[in-house]
């Protein structure tokens, strides 16, 4: 697509996003995503679209204001929220809860899991991924330690406990980083069914690896050493 047209689409979507301020984040993301997909679909159907053709697609979509007005008048959230000012800053993607959760990840991650569960700004999937990142780190650390120092029985669990249970749990910074990134990019992932299957398979594989690294592997080593 011509560079200036790409920019026009970009500006259109940004304007739409800011006009939609006041609606639930998930609705906002969904509407923007659908409008963008609509544009792409219309573009794909043109043999050789010119910039004027692309402008025409946007014109037919209607102004961002018209779409946002429709969204507000159709909102089920009761009374219409105040209309967004023309040059609205993007709506706050987070509250104090999210900030505290991110800090908690680096301070004491079990607390962060609880706080994160309360927050509605992350999807369940994102929360699960953050916890998974933490568990993978835990498994990697514990696995490495087992294989290096396990000759002293209990050292494995002691080290793991110190590293992962006592604050500050600095390694939580990776999960915190992921969640912070998700706050900035709340668009839903577009996973179609084959990808979902692959994703679940990967989760199961990681789960099995965790069980091995955290439980079976160390137990086996401890058992061998005790003989």
């Amino acid at each position, binding site marked *: 697509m011509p560079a200036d047209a790409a920019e026009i689409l970009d500006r259109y979507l940004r304007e739409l996003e800011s006009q939609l301020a006041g609606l639930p984040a998930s*609705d906002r993301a*969904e*509407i923007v995503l*659908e*409008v963008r*997909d*609509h544009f*792409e*679909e*219309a573009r*794909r159907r043109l043999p050789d679209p010119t910039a004027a053709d692309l402008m025409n697609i946007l014109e*037919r*979509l*209607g*102004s961002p204001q*018209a*779409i*946002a007005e*429709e*969204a507000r008048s*159709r*909102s*089920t959230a009761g009374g219409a929220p105040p209309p967004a000012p023309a040059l609205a800053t993007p709506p706050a993607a987070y509250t104090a809860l999210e900030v505290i959760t991110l800090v908690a990840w680096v301070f004491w991650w079990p607390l962060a899991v609880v706080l994160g569960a309360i927050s509605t700004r992350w999807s369940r999937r994102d929360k699960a991924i953050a916890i998974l990142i933490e568990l993978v780190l835990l498994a990697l650390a514990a696995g490495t330690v087992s294989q290096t120092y396990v000759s002293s029985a209990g050292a494995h669990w002691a080290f793991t406990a110190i590293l992962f249970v006592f604050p500050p749990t600095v390694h939580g910074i990776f999960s915190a980083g992921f969640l912070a990134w998700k706050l900035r990019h709340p668009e839903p992932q*577009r*996973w*179609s*069914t*084959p990808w979902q299957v692959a994703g679940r398979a990967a989760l199961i594989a990681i789960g099995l690896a965790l069980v091995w690294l955290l439980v079976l592997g160390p137990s086996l080593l401890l058992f061998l050493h005790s003989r």
Partner: protein
Amino acid sequence: MPLETLETQLRKGVLEYCVLGLLEAEPRYGFELVQHLGQADGLLSSEGTIYPLLARMRNEGLVTTEWRESPAGPPRRYYSLTAAGERGLREFRLSWKRFREAVDYVIAPKGGR
């Protein structure tokens, strides 16, 4: 009330049920819905306004969505009717018929000679 305003309001009121009607036979994606509504003259003024409506209908449990592969290009979000959506459509058909017949009856040209 100017006819134009009236039409806008009527359109707004029935659009949701037109969407339900389009989804009755098979699931469709947004662009497809817009095309069909566009063929029925005057049902959709700004194409983009269908998306807030679809989002609301999904929140209300009238439709459900699902990503499906497309033969060319990225996956598409398909909308399909839920049981509540089917019920809504059935009820609307009845009340629309009653409404149309009542209005037709009242405004039918009278007299003649």
